[in-house]
Each structure stands twice: as structure tokens, then as C-alpha cells.
């Protein structure tokens, strides 16, 4: 089995609302897969279908080689989940929650648990309600990470964590990644986190996957910004398809260029004579903004 998660044409409706509309998602075993999309895109819904909490209205979903709905309890021994909205029982302390969820999953490693509690600087003796948002999140993270499982499903696991703890989270996930046999599905709105951790990612919008691939693949799809000072006049730059937003003034030009138009554009510049050139790779933010705001269909 090389695919930990294999979702094809998934449909989920809530009454009149179609939350998932022919969604495809493939996560390879051993990779950290980023799962992104604007609010309400359907990330949490997808995850709930994958966990057998919700039943899909159409399409197929395979999780660790099994059927997430029919084989739910057996599959759940092999995965750990951090829900997007973390609240725990007011009667139980953080430590009790961590142990309980670990045991319900089929066991946890007490040494690992203690190490994680220390790294996340968590006080496990507090009762559910008295934790701050970030600390509740830490309880959920420690509970999920303490078990030795094949798959981690993390729904916005770092919302509410301070930058220091965010850093700890990244270290822990990178360690997991180095082991090579743990798969992580990471839904997130924090782009630097995705950039730092993910091998591949899928962007969804309105219940549909709009882009999937490695970061490099995705970058390739976007435009590089070029600024150049030229020694002579430049001709034909505007007529190259793939060059956008061209401005020129006193021998200085600036434009955005699609990956495939990069070569002809640079050749044209060189022909005119280049004094200096700055090229800016597409930032992740731009990439997302373009995907997030793209109009329907």
C-alpha cells in the first residue's frame, strides 16, 4: 500500500449545502501532506468522512487500505486525530485526557507522553475548563502524538499556539517525518508551517481540489516577478504571452511572468542589454491568494 489516503469524487451534502463536491485527495504513505483551503472549503468535513464520523453521499474513500465507515474502529487503532475545535471534559485533567484517549486508541507510550508534556511545557494537572485555548490545543497534540500510530490526522493543530510552541510542534513533526513510516495529514491556514513541513499539498475550495502537488510543482504554476535595469530599448516584451503587468520607465522594466514564458522573456531582456536584474520567486502567500480568491469555476 503506497497510499495512506485515497479519496475520489467524494460528495457530502448537508441539506441544501454541498460541502464536498467531487473531492479528490491522495496522500502517500510516509509523507506530510498539507491540506489547505479558505474557511468553509470543506477540510474538516473531509477529515470527518475519513474518520468515519460522517458518511459520504458519493465517491470513494480509502484510509490505510480500509473503508473509513465500515472499518472505523479497527482503523482508528492505527491513527490519531487532533480535532479542529478542541474542548475536553471539565471533570478531567489534561493528563487524564491524554491517558484516556491513548488507552481508548489501544495504548500509548508513557515515556513519549512525558517527554512531549515537557517539551510543550504543559501542566497536566489542570482541569479541562481552566486551560487556555493554546493549552487545550497542547493537550490534544500530546494525546495524539504519544501513541505510536501510522497516521496522524491534524485539523489546524497549531491554532492558538504561541510562536515558541509552534516551533516545538514543527520540530516534533520533522522528527516524525525522519522516521519515514508515519503519514501526516495536516490541515492548516499557516503558510510558513506548510512550507516548512509538507512534502506535498492539496488546496481545496468550495469542496473541490483545485491544486495538488509538491510546493515546487505549485510554484511552477505561478508567476515570477522580474525587475530589470536595461542598457538599451526593449522590444516585443509586451507581445510575449505569459508576461503580465508590464511597466517601463527610464530604462527600468518590471513585470510578472508565467513559468513557461520565463525563457523568452529573459532572452528579450538580454537582447536589450541588462545592467541589473532582480527576480522574485512567487511567494506562497500569492499562490494561495490566487487560489483562494479565484472566482467560481
Amino acid at each position, binding site marked *: 500500500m503506497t497510499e495512506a489516503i485515497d479519496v475520489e469524487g467524494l460528495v457530502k451534502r448537508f441539506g441544501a449545502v454541498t460541502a464536498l463536491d467531487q473531492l479528490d485527495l491522495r496522500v502517500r504513505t510516509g509523507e506530510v501532506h498539507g491540506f489547505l483551503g479558505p474557511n468553509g472549503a470543506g477540510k474538516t468535513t473531509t477529515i*470527518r468522512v475519513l*474518520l468515519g*464520523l*460522517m*458518511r459520504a453521499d458519493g465517491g470513494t474513500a480509502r484510509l490505510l487500505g480500509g473503508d473509513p465507515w465500515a472499518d*472505523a*474502529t*479497527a482503523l*482508528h*487503532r492505527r*491513527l490519531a*486525530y487532533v*480535532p479542529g*475545535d*478542541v*474542548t*475536553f*471534559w*471539565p*471533570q*478531567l*485533567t489534561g*493528563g*487524564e485526557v*491524554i*491517558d*484516556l*484517549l491513548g*488507552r*481508548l*486508541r*489501544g495504548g500509548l507510550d508513557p515515556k513519549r507522553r512525558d517527554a512531549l508534556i515537557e517539551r510543550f511545557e504543559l501542566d*497536566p*494537572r*489542570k*482541569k479541562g*475548563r*481552566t486551560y487556555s485555548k493554546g493549552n487545550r490545543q497542547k493537550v*490534544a497534540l500530546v494525546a495524539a502524538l504519544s501513541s505510536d500510530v501510522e497516521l496522524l*490526522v491534524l485539523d489546524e493543530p497549531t491554532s492558538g499556539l504561541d510562536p515558541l510552541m509552534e516551533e516545538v510542534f514543527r520540530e516534533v513533526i520533522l522528527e516524525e517525518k525522519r522516521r519515514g513510516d508515519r503519514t501526516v495529514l495536516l490541515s492548516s491556514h499557516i503558510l510558513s508551517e506548510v512550507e516548512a513541513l509538507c512534502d506535498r499539498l492539496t488546496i481545496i475550495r468550495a469542496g473541490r481540489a483545485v491544486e495538488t502537488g509538491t510546493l515546487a510543482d505549485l510554484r511552477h504554476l505561478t508567476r515570477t516577478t522580474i525587475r530589470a535595469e536595461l542598457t538599451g530599448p526593449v522590444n516585443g516584451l509586451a507581445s510575449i504571452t505569459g508576461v503580465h503587468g508590464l511597466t517601463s520607465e527610464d530604462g527600468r522594466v518590471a513585470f510578472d511572468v508565467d513559468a513557461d514564458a520565463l525563457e523568452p522573456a529573459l532572452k528579450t531582456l538580454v537582447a536589450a542589454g541588462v545592467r541589473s536584474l532582480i527576480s522574485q520567486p512567487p511567494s506562497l502567500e500569492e499562490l494561495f491568494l490566487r487560489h483562494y480568491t479565484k472566482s467560481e469555476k
Partner: protein
Amino acid sequence: MTGTGRLLRLVLRRDRWIMPLWIFGFGILPYVYIAGFETLFATAQERVDYARVSAANTGFIALYGPLHGDSLGELAVWRGGFVPLMIGLAALLTVVRHTRADEESGRTELVRATVVGRYAQLAAALIATAGASLLMGLVVAGTMIGAGQPVAGSIALGVVFMLSGWMFAGVGAIAAQLTSSARSARTLGVVALGVSFVLRLGGDVSDDREFLAWLSPIGWVHRVFPYGENNGGPAVLALVFAIVTVGVSAYLLAHRDMGAGLLASRLGPATAAASLGSPLALAWRLHRGLLFGWTAGFAALGLVFGGVGSSVVQLAADSGGVDEVFSRIGGSGAVTDAYFATTAAVCGLIAACYAVQAALRMRDEEQSGHAEAVLSTSVGRFTWGASHLIFALLGPAVALLAQGLLAGVVHGTVGPVLAASLAQLPAVWVLAGVTMLLVGTWPKMASLAWGAIAACVLLLLVGSLLEFDQWVLDLSPFTHVPHLPGGTFTPLPLVLLTAVAAAFGGVGLLALRRRDVPR
């Protein structure tokens, strides 16, 4: 107080269904009693006899409160003796729902960050509840005057109903400030209500301890005696109590942080005990507070009901004229039996509230996201649901056992009294089953289970009086419980009720397996 108006509108909007229900439900109840009694008593003499027997029956006094006169109005007020308790409950739950429950869920934080004063939320909740109580009082006075009852008495009764709401709105407001969760606020409020009832009962059943009833807000309410003495004193006391409780709650609100209660939480263990590792163990942790609380309450009821039961016969023997009436309906033994049958029925309905509350925990767990955390581990839906359902079934059994046993021991005849309480169980289970069915099949409407209980209460209170058709009465599982002690015991209805409960519960659990969680 800035923003109170806007919040008030929000409160009214959120309660637009439930509030009219209790305003009119309780509001027209006295009228219903009048109508019922008018058809029940063919002659005035019959009514006077009934009043004379009732006023001397300690069991009845324990349940409904003291009775001083024999007019139609006084009898109606007396038979509705439970109503102030229920109004109090509705009022305190409303206040908690719009204060502590909101604060716990974080909605308050959103609201308070806007231009809204510190007291606005409490003020809005109190104004809404007080207004609803006032409206209910007007409905009472209006319908009673319309029914041809004396004007002064009708107004007094309206005031009594209104003040019952006001006093416990204040109690709810204090409970909401003291605790840090809506659940403990509700518990605290209900305990206060229970203590007032028991004090009232203790004071009413014995002349030399009447001061006890004067310590209880519910006791004051009974001492107004609308249509009889129309006493102003106890009403003034009640009004002062309402004002003081509201003042105290405002003071407490000003002296605590948002989100916090005054009763602080402590640190707990850093690791889970070895036993906390199964869905059942988790359910035990979540349900045990409820179990202990309800069992303690039922034990207290058992002691009180048992203690009073002994004086029922004594009193009957003391008053010669009354004895003759008793013998007409089967002798003093029959009176004691009737008394214990009534208390058992009352306890059955209260136990049903426990069953519904425990079964609805499942829904709370789902809505708060806790269920998602558990169901994403290798715990299946069926196991999860069953682990909660078992407490809805066995919890009331323990509570009724405690009540029946203690009542029997105190009274001196354990068997029949205990049997009467335990005979309620299958009917209680039917309501647990109904709740499970709703949670499984129609989760958004799961709180309709409370409506089912309300219907059972209504049928018990006014069903026979208004001579409903038998099939209507048969809808309540409690109609099928054999009248014990005294009546003939037939196991078949109990077996059938248990089967119905099992069917409802089973279908609910199976449906739970097939639906989305959370939904």
C-alpha cells in the same frame, strides 16, 4: 447596563417558543383545576367533604401544602401546590441559560467585547424572566376572574405565581455567579429549590415546627392563601427575597472575573488512574456526580415521605369525623396506601427527569465535540452510546431504590413501599428509551424528551380530573404502572413497558450507528 435592550431582544428571540409555553402552561393551570373540580363535585357538600378530608390528611398536606378553606378557588390553588415549584424551576433555568451557559460557551465574550455593559447580560436575563412571570400572573388573574372567581383572590394568586418566578430567577442568578459551569449552576439552583420544598413540607406537617415553613420561599408562597386569607405579609417577604437575591447576584458579578466562578477549581492528578481506560469508565466519571446528587436527593425524599407517612394514619384516627369519610373510601389503611402510591408516582416522574437528563448527556457530549474525540479512537458508536444509556437506566434504579428503601424503613413496612417505588422503573425506562430514540434518529430535537416528561406530568396532574379519554391517558407510561401499595400487582404491564423501553433504546442505538456525528 448599556446594551441591555438589545440583549433583551436576543433573549426573547432565543426563547420565543419555550417562554410562551411556560407562561401559558402554568398560567391556565388554576383555571383547569377549577373546571375539573366543577365537574367532579356534583354538590357543594361533596366539595366541603373533600376539603375537610384533604385538610386533615398529612400526606396530602405534605405533597400539596396546607389547605385552610373549602371554596372552589382555595381547592384549586391547593391542588396546584406543585406549580410554584415548577415555575421556580423554569425561572431559574431560564436565567442560568442566558447567563452562565452563555458565558461558559464563550458567547458572552463575544457580546461583552461589543458596547455592552458589565451588568447587561444578567439584567436582560432577569428582566425577561421577571416579565414572563408577570405575564403569567396576569394570565392567572385574568382566567380566574373570567371563571367567576373573586377578584381579590385571583389577583393574589397571580401575584403568588409571579413571585415564585421572581424569587427563583434571583436564586438562579446567584447560582450562575457562584459556579463556573452551567451544569453546576443548575444543580445548585435545583438543590435550593429542593431544600425550600423540604423545609416547607417539614413545617407544614407539624404544628410545633411550623417555623421551618417560614424559612422557605416556597413556604411563604403557600401562606398567602388566595381566595381565603389573601395574606399580604408572606408576599412582601417573597418580594424582598427576590430583590435581595438579585442585588446579591449583581454584587457577586461585580466581584469576579469573566468566565470564573467564585468557587475556584483545584488541580487534579497528572496521570489517569489505571481504571480510566474504557468508554464505561469515562461514562462513570461523567455521570457519577449526577448519580450521587440524585441519589442523595431521592434518599432525602424517602426520609421525608416515609416520616410523614406514619402520621397520616395517626391523624386520621385522631379526628373522628374524618375517620368516617376514610372508612367510606376503604379505611385508614387505604389512606396510607393511597399516600404512598402518590408519593411513588411523584418519585417516578422525578426519576424520569433524571433518566432524560442522563441520556441527554450523550447529546451534550456530541455538541461540545467530546464525542468526536472519543469516536476517533477505536471506540464504536454502539459502545459509546450504550455506556451513557446504562447510566440513564441504572441511575434512576439506584435513586428509586434509595427512596423506596428509606421511606419503607422510616415508615416501618419496607416491602410494599419499596415495591411501589421500584414499580415505577419500567415507565422511567420508557422515557430513557424515548430520549435515546430521539438522540439516534432526530438529534436536533432531542430535548423534546423534556416535552414527553411534561406531557406525563400534565396527564398525571389534570388527566383524570378533566376526564380525558383513556387512550390519551394511556400515552403516558406512568398510566400503566400498577397502583402500589394497595392495588393489585400484575407483572404484564411492567414487562410490556420494559419491552417498549428496550425497543426504543435499541432502535436509537442502531440509528446512532448510521448517522453523522456530530450532527
